[in-house]
């Protein structure tokens, strides 16, 4: 017990509710949460450090393994960043295949999230139901790439495997399967009275907070923020496609930013992904899938390349970002920086947790779809909220710099 009559309850790093090592310390006054303190770094593997000691091709499989759920996202960003730095243009067909893969991953990620959210509020039947229907898209991903997770699909200048015409019927069948099931998902997650009781008005993130804390992805779109990299700064083939910001107000609901609207946004994005994949299959041009088929030649080109590049894409969890710098004559990457979407969204925890009950911790923790594997990078932020104290960007930055220095202090480079 602390001097101010509050208790501290640690959740993690090893906890049945968490599938990843992460520690949040809650300050509890009675049943109310009055403070939340995040302690990341349990999953810090030094991936950027490793990447800066390998050649660009060897980093592709490493970038996939930043996170097993967003493996496509990180490959996509890393490859885009290197292509940007070295001036390599992927072929048009490869751009469309990239979009198809990214959207298939969005479907699998959002269905997975729906299951986890249901599990957190005690509906294990729904967990099993959503994970059962998720297997269908996993089958499709395996059919296209040969593996259930970590697909090794991206390469500089294009993709490794084609999606030929003979695969279309199976892709279409899977999309149809989800379209037919969508009504049931909506009925479960938006119509069920007991789920509505647990989600409406819980974990509210106001539009002001969402903007101030720089949240990204469905987490802030649920609060009515129009933010989607696929539309704001189109990459791959998204510029040719027809898509719209998925906001709750588009479907006659309020942009309240509670867990209900976050669920709604994710479900609607599922439908959107199906639509995008259909558009891609229709418009995909007939050409080679790789503009740089000779790996040794490309490696040589990358070795001579001098410059910096960025990869900025909309992951299922929101905007994520890779920065790569190449130096002429140096085989390894000169610099590699990863910023995953959970990194931004973690800051939105503070206003969402404030004043809620202990029992709401799991669902609020799950509502940003946290991905610790993605987030625990070289730089570590210590979010110290204290008692309803507001924190500022400078303060976060100062803490972040201090922690990085502390971390690096013990390391021989």
């Amino acid at each position: 017990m602390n001097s101010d009559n509050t208790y501290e309850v640690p959740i993690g790093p090893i906890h049945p509710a968490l599938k990843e090592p992460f520690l949040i310390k809650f300050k509890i006054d009675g049943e109310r949460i009055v403070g939340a303190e995040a302690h990341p770094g349990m999953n810090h593997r030094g991936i950027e450090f490793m990447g800066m000691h390998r050649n660009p091709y060897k980093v592709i499989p490493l970038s996939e393994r930043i996170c097993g759920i967003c493996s496509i996202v990180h490959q996509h960003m890393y490859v885009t960043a290197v292509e940007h730095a070295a001036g390599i243009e992927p072929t048009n067909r490869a751009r469309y295949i990239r979009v198809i893969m990214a959207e298939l991953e969005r479907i699998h990620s959002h269905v997975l999230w729906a299951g986890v959210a249901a599990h957190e509020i005690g509906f294990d039947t729904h967990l099993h139901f959503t994970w059962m229907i998720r297997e269908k898209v996993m089958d499709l991903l395996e059919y296209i790439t040969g593996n259930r997770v970590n697909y090794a699909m991206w390469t500089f200048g294009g993709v490794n495997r084609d999606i030929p015409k003979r695969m279309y019927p199976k892709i279409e069948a899977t999309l149809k399967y989800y379209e037919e099931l969508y009504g049931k998902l909506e009925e479960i997650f938006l119509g069920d009275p007991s789920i509505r009781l647990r989600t409406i008005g819980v974990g509210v993130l106001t539009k002001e907070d969402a903007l101030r804390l720089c949240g990204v992805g469905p987490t802030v779109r649920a609060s009515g923020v129009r933010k989607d990299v696929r539309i704001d700064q189109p990459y791959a083939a998204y510029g040719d496609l027809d898509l719209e910001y998925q906001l709750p107000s588009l479907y006659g609901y309020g942009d309240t930013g509670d867990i209900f609207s976050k669920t709604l946004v994710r479900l609607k994005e599922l439908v959107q992904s199906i639509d995008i994949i259909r558009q891609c299959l229709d418009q995909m041009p007939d050409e080679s899938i790789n503009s740089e088929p000779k790996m040794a030649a490309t490696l040589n080109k990358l070795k001579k390349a001098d410059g910096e590049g960025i990869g900025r894409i909309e992951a299922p969890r929101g905007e994520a970002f890779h920065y790569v710098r190449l130096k002429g004559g140096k085989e390894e990457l000169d610099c590699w920086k990863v910023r995953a979407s959970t990194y931004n969204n973690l800051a939105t925890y503070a206003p969402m947790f404030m004043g809620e009950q202990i029992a709401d911790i799991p669902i609020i923790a799950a509502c940003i779809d946290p991905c610790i594997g993605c987030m625990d990078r070289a730089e570590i932020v210590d979010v110290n909220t204290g008692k309803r104290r507001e924190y500022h960007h400078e303060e976060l930055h100062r803490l972040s710099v201090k922690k990085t220095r502390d971390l690096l202090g013990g390391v021989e480079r």
Partner: protein
Amino acid sequence: MKFTKTFDKALWVFHLNSGSCNGCDIEIVAAITPRYDVERFGIKLVGSPRHADVLLFTGPVTRKMKSRVLRVYHQTPDPKVVMVIGNCGSTTGVFYDSYAIEGPIDTLLPKDAHIIYVNGCPVRPENIINGVKEAWLHLEKLRGDNR
């Protein structure tokens, strides 16, 4: 597969992530959910290492997790089997030459620990089920020896 005479109870497993990429962890959950459904064999994920027979271990051990991994290992009652799921658990896989990696796990655990390696990056659910079967047989032998 043939069970020995000492087979007496269902197998409970505790899942421990020490810095893996999530791939294997998601596949472990996939093995529990309806497509593969290992709960019909009585294999169940439990919330505390003190209830577990088998530790499902994923990831190369990160620096911050090292002490916690060892603590959980010692909290698990004997006889126990450690199942190392995934390539990065058994060899650290793609995560080599890093300052933050302390693993692989078999270099940290006591020398007499019983370890079963399940390979793949990530491991397929079928392979996890096969690994649990191996762990089961191993555990039975251990129990048999103790009687």
